[in-house]
């Protein structure tokens, strides 16, 4: 436990020192100190986390703290260690990446403050995972929100960045507002706010209320629909290494919160599982549909985070249904799939964001319709982005398939074993996962194909050279981890299943073995696939050895002036799908057709505003503002009237007291 505390201290110290040095004027030293300090702290923190995951036990740590009801108590069980490992690994990778990415800003902005916020964000995320007291948890949660707000607003001279930061702040606080009553409800029984005392086995209605509050509060952080509206605004606005951390790791603290609360509130009810599956299915499908209609690369990736959080929720729902009906194997598979997807998503989403940032650095734009052919100039970025794209589409042999397979297996086994009413949500889970998988593959062929393949669609945005090693090495690390987890599926899933069993107290050794057994065959098939692909390539090259192999232009059906502007663009690639789902997407199209008989200039612009924003929040906020502006009549602007208000209030209180 001391190592973790030491790691938090190193995070904060390196951030503070970097900030002070940045103020002092040594522009180049500050970011290096901040970034390498973060890496060192992450490595220090990984040691105890890995030991706990391997089965060692670390005793809790308590410090006296003078706040009433609060106590500075830290505890690291397997669930915390699981989340800590992925938080620390991604923090370290993104810190190194941020060092390379931030070279751009060196002359113009002071980076020291940004590194202070980054390290504070990392430290607070660590604290959230190991806090054992509700007050400590909430303090760490707030620090996390504040630090990420300042990071999102790093380029605050741009109007849309300021707007995005504001939306993010509002959403976070609305979510946290639900957490406070939940913790108070949980603590009202035992009378203290320590997690060890939370225990709601007796009262099922209270458990229902706490579950709903946790879903709204932590769901806002996680990004489930309809609370996701901050995600597509905040993630493109933040600098790329911050987006990678926020999308990969920070929204997973919401998942951590939900799982933690599930361990407090006793035996689950079936409708919780159904609600989680429904919310997950809606988020997944709508998230990927919105992603398909975006032409800003980072906004597309942000909507994909919404979709993957939906998949995680589906896994949690399947697990709860399994736990309710006593089918332990279904419960273990569902929860293990959800937890493993947490790790997998952090890895490949971080990787994809880093790739998008590298492309942005080189080409100066995030608009996919202006890019193209980047793979030729940036092979490492392109290849790692391809690995991330294949992984996020859930295709074998990479890690996305492993976690989706676990969730599928849980649902199928539940369908096979139970011929009862519980089958309906499980069937819905299968249908949703299948639809999400197909649409995600469509979206990522679009993202990868339009940006990296073909030819450049606009002459002003051509990539010049590969990104610097500071940026490519973290991407290579994440891509290799994706491949390793994909091939070593049994190990990773076995570890996740261990975590599930220890956290939820499911007594089922057969469940654990079944999970590993299933995955051994899957890994075997993945290995066969890779060997097969290599073998086929060798056969093809052997066949071509004696034959003529020439290079020519792409077959162009006789058009002599084929240009790269004639390629399919991102919007045209997604057009069949977005037109089919136009009812949900409500894309706004502005078309200006050419007049006259011969083709001349025409103009098409599409924009897909977020449906949650437009339909739910904007009308709601306008209504609230209209309601509250009725009170504006009280603001007369004359100080004599305000003094009169004070006197009246005091008199009323006096009479009330004397009554």
């Amino acid at each position, binding site marked *: 436990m001391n190592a973790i505390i030491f790691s938090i201290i190193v995070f904060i110290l390196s951030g503070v020192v970097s900030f002070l040095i940045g103020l002092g004027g040594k522009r180049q030293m500050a970011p290096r100190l901040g970034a390498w300090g973060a890496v060192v702290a992450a490595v220090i923190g990984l040691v105890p986390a890995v030991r706990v995951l391997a089965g060692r036990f670390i005793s809790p740590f308590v410090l006296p703290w003078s706040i009433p009801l609060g106590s500075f108590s830290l505890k690291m069980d397997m669930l915390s260690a699981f989340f800590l490992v992925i938080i620390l690994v991604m923090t370290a990778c993104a810190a190194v990446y941020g060092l390379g990415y931030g070279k751009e800003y060196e002359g113009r902005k002071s980076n020291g403050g940004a590194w202070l916020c980054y390290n504070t964000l990392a430290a607070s995320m660590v604290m959230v995972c190991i806090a054992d007291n509700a007050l400590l948890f909430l303090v760490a949660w707030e620090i996390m929100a504040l630090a990420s707000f300042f990071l999102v607003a790093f380029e605050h001279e741009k109007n849309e960045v300021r707007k995005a930061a504001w939306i993010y702040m509002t959403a976070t606080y609305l979510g946290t507002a639900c957490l406070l009553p939940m913790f108070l409800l949980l603590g009202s029984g035992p009378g203290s706010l320590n997690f060890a005392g939370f225990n709601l086995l007796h009262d099922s209605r209270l458990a229902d209320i706490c579950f709903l509050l946790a879903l709204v509060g932590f769901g806002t952080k996680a990004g489930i629909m309809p609370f996701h509206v901050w995600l597509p605004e905040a993630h493109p606005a933040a600098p790329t290494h911050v987006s990678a951390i926020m999308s990969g790791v920070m929204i997973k603290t919401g998942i951590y919160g939900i799982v933690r609360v599930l361990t407090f509130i006793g035996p689950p009810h079936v409708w919780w599982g159904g609600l989680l599956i429904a919310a997950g299915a809606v988020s997944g499908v709508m998230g990927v549909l919105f992603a398909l209609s975006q032409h800003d690369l980072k906004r597309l990736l942000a909507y994909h985070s919404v979709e993957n959080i939906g998949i995680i929720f589906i896994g949690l729902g399947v697990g709860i249904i399994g736990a309710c009906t006593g089918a332990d194997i279904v419960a273990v598979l569902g929860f293990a799939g959800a937890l493993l997807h947490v790790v997998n998503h952090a890895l490949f989403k971080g990787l994809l964001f880093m790739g998008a940032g590298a492309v942005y650095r080189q080409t100066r734009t995030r608009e996919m319709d202006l890019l193209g052919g980047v793979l030729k100039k940036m092979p490492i970025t392109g290849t790692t982005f391809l690995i991330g794209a*294949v992984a996020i589409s859930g*295709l074998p042999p990479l890690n996305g398939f492993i976690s989706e397979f676990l969730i599928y297996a849980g649902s199928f086994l539940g369908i*096979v074993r139970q011929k009862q009413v519980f089958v309906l949500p499980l069937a819905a889970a299968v249908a949703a996962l299948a639809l999400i998988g197909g649409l995600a593959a469509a979206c990522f062929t679009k993202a990868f194909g339009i940006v990296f393949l073909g030819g450049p669609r606009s002459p002003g945005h051509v990539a010049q050279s590969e990104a610097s090693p500071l940026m490519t090495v973290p991407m290579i690390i994440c891509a290799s981890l994706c491949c390793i987890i994909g091939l070593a599926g049994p190990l990773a899933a076995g570890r996740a299943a261990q975590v599930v069993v220890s956290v939820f107290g499911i007594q089922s050794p057969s469940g654990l073995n079944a999970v590993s057994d299933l995955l051994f065959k899957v890994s075997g098939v993945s290995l066969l*696939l890779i060997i097969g692909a290599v073998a086929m390539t060798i056969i093809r090259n052997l066949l071509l050895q004696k*034959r003529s192999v*020439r290079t020519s*232009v792409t077959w162009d059906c006789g058009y002599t002036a084929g240009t790269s502007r004639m390629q399919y663009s991102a919007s045209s*690639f997604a057009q069949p799908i977005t037109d089919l789902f136009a009812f949900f997407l409500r894309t706004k199209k502005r078309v200006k057709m050419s007049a006259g008989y011969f083709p001349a200039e025409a103009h098409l612009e599409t924009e897909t505003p977020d449906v949650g924003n437009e339909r739910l929040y904007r009308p709601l906020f306008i209504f609230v503002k209209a309601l509250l502006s009725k009170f504006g009549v009280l603001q007369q602007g004359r100080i004599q009237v305000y003094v009169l208000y004070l006197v009246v209030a005091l008199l009323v209180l006096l009479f009330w007291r004397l009554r």
Partner: protein
Amino acid sequence: MTGLLLAPLVNGVINRVKARFAGRSGPPVVQPYYDLIKFLRKGAVYSGTTTWIFKASPPVSMAAALISLALVPFGGTASLIAFTGDCIVLAYMLGLMRFFTIAAALDTGSSFEGMGASREALFSALAEPAFLIGIAALAGETGFFSLSLMLGKVPTVSFELLMVVVAFVIVYLCENARIPFDDPATHLELTMVHEVMALDHGGPDFGFIQYAASIKQWILGALIVDILMPYNGGRWYVGIIEGVAAMLMLAIIIGIIESTMARLRLLRVPQLLVAAGALSTIALLLIMR
């Protein structure tokens, strides 16, 4: 194993049936084999716009198709690789094949391939749920979760399973670029879905792609045939012969469907796929009742 040898034969039979319906005598039934040998003997021309992804796509498709073939049982005997959950691996292996085909199509930088890729993305996104829900219905009916156990042990074909078979036939027509989804004989803009994605490939690459496509066709046909045929034990070669006969019968039926229908308007295609999904879902709900 039979699939490896006989997959192109199914293509030949379909083409012959279509030719007969059109009043011609048509190519010999073994023509696809001659075509494959011809492709394997040629050189290759690669476009300057393409990258290594274009060269990697045919071998990856081939490997994915071969492994999927090993996962599917045929003729009442278990498949080469059988384990709990192999149906999901099958569906996603086909998805991997599709991903690399679409990537290679976008790699050429031509609007023809882009058109095919974008339509293929939509069609397969809608066909996959229909397929997986049908598999779930099958799993619910037979009580097993592995393809070798599910197929070939179906005692009687109930009404729900017939609905699943109809849904699978629609998915078969979609995935294999048959009318009413696509016309495998032309390359016009209206019918650019599957054929056009491989437009720039030539030589051994094209041979690989054609063979992988015919194996995919064999796999989806084997699923349909295995549900319908009663394999009542007996020697293993009896089952194989029955299976082959059923596959050829299926090929003739597909040829008849292709000759008597016209290609659907592109706007209607998603409706047909959603209908297939609805059929599978209704079958699943009825089975679970």
